[in-house]
């Protein structure tokens, strides 16, 4: 008899364990999925346009799935053949790698001095660098170009890379980070016999790993997609970056069809996508950190 009374409530409590998601959770999931769809759809659209049967205008007959892989690869091959895209890949990748390496090296070395040592005029110098953060690109573009031109660096890799190496933002971020390294840690290093460079190399640099990764990611994003500076400084095919090659496709008098333009864009999107897939964890950490560190 007691069983008969107890069982319905036991059932009820059992059912509660399966945990019906609250309205809030459902809404959160809906929001997250919507954002994901919005973010992924263009990529998918691009993909299906590239791998669509050639000659069937997408605008007339839109499809949401790839219809011909052979035609897609043919288009990719066409783009590679006709535009020096491989060369542009090489230029863009070198441009990005060299810029990242240079920005990390220069920012961290400068930040090491600014954050951990005193020297005359330190605050004034730092203020000047920070002020430069407020100067818009439009103001510096022409003087920088003239300087690079004077150096004879137009249409060279160094012309592309060097002006971007002194990153005020990088210095600011690394300085903020290195200020949190206790002075005593460096003093201990010094007593252990480390010279100035060894303090930087063996102590400050490894301790700033997270900040360096963040800065590398931010620099990647900025450099890979950079358009204006390459446009100004590299005017020959030899030093075109990916974004410039794409720009050629967009020119109003080009006779290529939409799906070929889309192929060029698709190829340009692949490296950043790979980058994000591989470095996802650090990117999230990095964005969180740069967010909280200002």
């Amino acid at each position: 008899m007691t069983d008969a009374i107890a069982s319905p409530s036991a059932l009820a409590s059992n059912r509660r364990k399966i945990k019906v998601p609250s309205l809030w959770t459902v809404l959160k999931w809906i929001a997250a999925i919507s954002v994901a769809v919005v973010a992924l759809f263009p990529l998918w659209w691009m993909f299906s346009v590239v791998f669509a049967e050639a000659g069937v205008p997408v605008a007339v007959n839109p499809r949401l799935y790839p219809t011909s892989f052979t035609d897609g690869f043919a288009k990719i091959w066409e783009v590679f053949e006709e535009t020096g895209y491989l060369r542009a890949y090489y230029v863009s990748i070198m441009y990005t790698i060299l810029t990242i390496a240079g920005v990390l090296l220069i920012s961290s070395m400068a930040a090491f001095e600014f954050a951990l040592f005193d020297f005359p005029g330190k605050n004034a110098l730092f203020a000047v660098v920070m002020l430069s953060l407020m100067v818009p690109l439009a103001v510096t573009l022409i003087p920088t170009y003239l300087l690079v031109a004077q150096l004879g660096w137009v249409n060279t890799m160094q012309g592309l890379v060097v002006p971007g190496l002194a990153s005020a933002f990088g210095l600011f971020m690394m300085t903020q980070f290195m200020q949190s390294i206790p002075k005593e840690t460096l003093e201990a290093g010094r007593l252990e016999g480390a010279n100035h460079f060894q303090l930087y190399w063996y102590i400050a640099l490894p301790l700033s790993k997270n900040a360096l990764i963040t800065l590398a990611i931010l620099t990647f994003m900025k450099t890979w997609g950079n358009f204006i500076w390459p446009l100004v400084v590299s005017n020959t095919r030899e030093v075109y970056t990916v974004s410039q090659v794409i720009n050629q496709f967009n020119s109003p008098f080009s006779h290529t069809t939409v799906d070929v333009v889309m192929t060029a864009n698709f190829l340009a999107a692949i490296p950043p996508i790979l980058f994000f897939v591989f470095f996802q964890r650090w990117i999230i950490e990095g964005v969180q950190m740069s967010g909280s560190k200002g």
Partner: protein
Amino acid sequence: MSDLQIKDAVKSYGNVDVLHNINLDIESGEFVVLVGPSGCGKSTLLRMISGLEDISGGEMFIDGELVNDVDAAKRGIAMVFQSYALFPHMTVAENMGFSLKLAKAHKSEINEKVRRAAEILQLEKLLERKPSQLSGGQKQRVAIGRAIVRNPKVFLFDEPLSNLDAELRIEMRAELIQLHKQLKTTMIYVTHDQVEAMTLADKMVVLEGGQVQQVGKPLELYDDPSNMFVAGFVGTPRMNFLPAEVVDVSNTTSTLRFAAENGAPEVVLPMTDGKLAIGSKVSVGIRPDHLHFSPAQSGDLAIPIDVAFVEELGDLTYVYVDTKAGTRLSSQKKDGRHNHGTTGYAVADTTSMFIFDADGHRVRA
């Protein structure tokens, strides 16, 4: 093993003098403890020795060689910081072997030396851990190990135990004494804990206001302090000080009156003529173990008092009393318990009194 001389060393930040005319002679293999209240310049002096701070004036010699301008990295001095200052990105073994790696020592030599230091400090099982995975005491050991591995000329310690709990502190203290016996390296140790100083030091240096107050064996400082600061700083509970005035002087004695006290008690001290002048103000210092609570008047000096409170620790009893003039005195009883009521006399013999002049200098009989 190295000796160290400091001659007239001065340190100033801008126009603020933090250390004045420091003179110190440290012999090879000595365990020297610098003590003093917070802000007296202990760390500054230690950092000057290490080379992390430069010397504003005066000279410093290690093994007879002038080191004023020798860089910290080249002095052959190891320092253990209060915060340990371990390298957080390196394992214990890497921390300890860092200096050897910088010196381009061979891998096998580094491993061997690290292993030996780890053995001395019982760190063998922790060698692969990162500092964040260690307890405070273990970090402390690693910091010491990092210093040992280098076989430095001089070891410096800046309050190395102050972040540890009381029990561990006592344990580490014993280990440090053991370590010093084993290595026989010159060690300079900073603390503001005078018990730590008394137990560790071969030679104790009391610093105050950027000046060396007295240097000597711990018991010398306890038995024969040369000024009021040292007398008050060394020994717990603190020495009692009572203000008094010289009222009479003869060839062999001086008479002091405790004017503000009830009945203005007087005491006649053996004192060479000319050391004290009639009318001069002095302070009389009496250690708690020489000041006794007595229900009745007795001894050379008896000051009427009220008992303020009593701390009974079993083997020891501290009786805190207030004189009629309001001075709080502490007295210590070795035997028995306190069961003598709430008023009586604080009594002491002249043999256990220290006399200090108005400037705090000791006046010896």
